[in-house]
């Protein structure tokens, strides 16, 4: 992982047409940008989709990508948001191998992060947590003390605060 490159939050509002996702993904891959997460979901009206992309790369490259994305026929808006300007959330489902002897400790961690138990068996537990990506990172790191069997995260979604458009 190249950690020196800054992370950017991008929100792209796009007409719901075949190929739109591929066109956007291409503009990132051609410029060597790493996409950390990409979430596509229906917009407020049915004909449009909202893409939330978290990607790492240099500032110049990012500006080019944003201009290239804005230029795509299907794209209505492409904006970058700082962490301060938005409400950001992510959801994680973590399946941890744990028996009754250690379950208490796992539940303690879950409780601290306000995670819910959504599945429980003799040998495993599935926790559901929501919050900022950093919070989820912290929880997952603590759970690594136990064996994490599977980890699924939705990727970050963002919405701009107040009157601003996302």
């Amino acid at each position, binding site marked *: 992982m190249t950690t020196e490159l800054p992370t950017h939050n991008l929100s792209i509002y796009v*007409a719901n047409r*075949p*190929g739109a996702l591929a066109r956007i993904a291409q503009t990132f891959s051609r410029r060597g940008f790493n996409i950390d997460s990409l979430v596509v979901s229906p917009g407020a009206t049915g004909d449009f989709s909202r893409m939330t992309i978290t990607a790492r790369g240099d500032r*110049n490259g990012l500006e*080019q990508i944003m201009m*290239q994305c804005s230029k795509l*026929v299907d*794209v209505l808006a492409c904006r970058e948001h700082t962490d301060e300007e938005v409400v950001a959330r992510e959801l994680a489902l973590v399946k941890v191998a744990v028996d009754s002897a250690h379950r208490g400790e796992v539940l303690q961690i879950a409780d601290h992060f306000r995670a819910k138990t959504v599945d429980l068996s003799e040998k495993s537990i599935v926790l559901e947590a929501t919050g900022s990506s950093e919070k989820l990172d912290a929880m997952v790191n603590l759970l690594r003390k136990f064996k994490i069997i599977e980890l699924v995260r939705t990727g970050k979604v963002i919405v701009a605060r107040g009157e601003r458009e996302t």
Partner: protein
Amino acid sequence: MSENQMNGAEALIQSLEKVGIEIGFGIPGGSAIPIYDALYKVRRKMKFVLVRHEQGAAHEADGYARATGKPAAVLVTSGPGATNTVTGIMTAYMDSVPMVVITGQSVRGMLGKDAFQEADVFNLTMPIVKHSYLVRNANDIPRVVKEAYHIATTGRPGPVLIDVPKDVGTEACTVGLESEMNLPGYKPEPKGYAPETIRQIAEALAKSQRPVIIAGHGAVLARAEKELRQLAETLQAPVATTLLGKGVFPDSHRLSLQGLGMHGTAYANRAVVECDLMISVGARLDDRILGVPSQFCRDAVKIHIDIDAAEFGKLVKPDIRCRGDAKAVLQDLLPLVKPGDTAEWLKRIDGFKKKWPMGYAKKGGLHPPQVIDALNKLTGGKAIMATDVGQHQMWAWQFYHCDQPWQFISSGGAGTMGFGLPAAIGAQFGRPGELVVAVVGDGGFQMTMSELATAAIHKLPVKVLIMNNHYLGMVRQWQDMFYDERYSGVDLEGNPDFAELAKAYGILGLNLKRAADIPKILKRALDHPGPAVVNVEVVHHEEVYPMVPPGKPLEDTVLEHPRRKRGRPTGRRSRPAPAAAKKA
């Protein structure tokens, strides 16, 4: 389907005619048969030209558009028919040429199942089209064609592809030809700038003592030649044109610097080096004109006018960016522009012109610039000139002087060999009454020479001048200059007899071997009512100068073959001749 109901393919052809497509180039195949059946049955006004290779179809549509400003259609089949157009689509995309490409496709039920002649053309072409469609319903066709034409021709023009599954072509289209476009994300914005930006530009211009204007294809496409000339004459600023901008400012004008960049004139490059303000009108400032991007106009104010915001800061960071159509911008700007006091600057530039004039060798065999210069004189610079890619292209750029836009047709961004002949054919279809000359090399000509058939069949009076040096000359030049004369893979030994080849197609074939015969042979070709091919046996070794060696700034323009060998261009240090050398 009832008698008077149309199917998807018929809707397609009628829609193409309705939006204003006047000509189509192509070759049918299995998946395109419904489209060709519709051509047979419902075509009224649109001309159709059967070509010999799909690449030729795309370049012909391209040449047509570059000569007329109007897009043509390309009509091909699925799989290899479609993939053969890829080079032509990419060529058009790189140079902002409008085009509508219709590809047949396997039936919907077979998509993604590796059916016969199935290729995922929609995804294959995605990075080289302005936009594309895979039509899944015949009722979408009238809208899709209308949108495709609109997208191809507005804003920064470009190719748009429509992939039509065979059974969409045969399915009933019940909606009629009237349709509404639905493009909520498409905003071409000819005036994407604030009035404030125009004022800023005017202020910067007023302060400049040594301005230079760079005019590119955007100025041509916007038909801004009149405004550009007015700007130059008011400011008394010299104008350099890019390869694709050639003619948008008259080469013969007192303020013209002609071309700039890697093989531009030494005086254009020097003017750019010494200017205190550079205003780019519809040029994207690509690597072939910049030398070293970070050193380009280092100390000058840089103003960039482009309809495509994605061009700003790609290689050069402008001080003022102005997003808009070149004509619209200049029309708003001109009332604010004050006459410039540049007498000192123009005197200095005249000095550059005297010090480093354009010239060429005349002795020891036939030299390509000599032939182009003679052609220039014979035609009064009035011919529509299509070139291929390589040394001859640069010589044509340097020595054929154009005073009009839409006259010099050349593959700039893509550098596509094989472009010249089909582009000339397309241009001739677009402007039938005018003289069209294709200047090509022996290498590029052989990549698409099957299109001689198209010229012969349609009796197009295209004149083809093959600068035959029996080499891939531009690569050889690089190998000579930077690779210690290791001539790897550039000797075209075994070329056919091009004059005889032309005759085999029923085309006038001539040989030009001596300088003394230049006027006679060229005249014979030009006076011939039909197509003519002139095999010009030029000297085998000749190099294009001036040249800015790769990786060097414009200051380092060299005028003649360096006595001492230069180092290799950066980035190629440990590699042999690049495999993609033909595109160099």
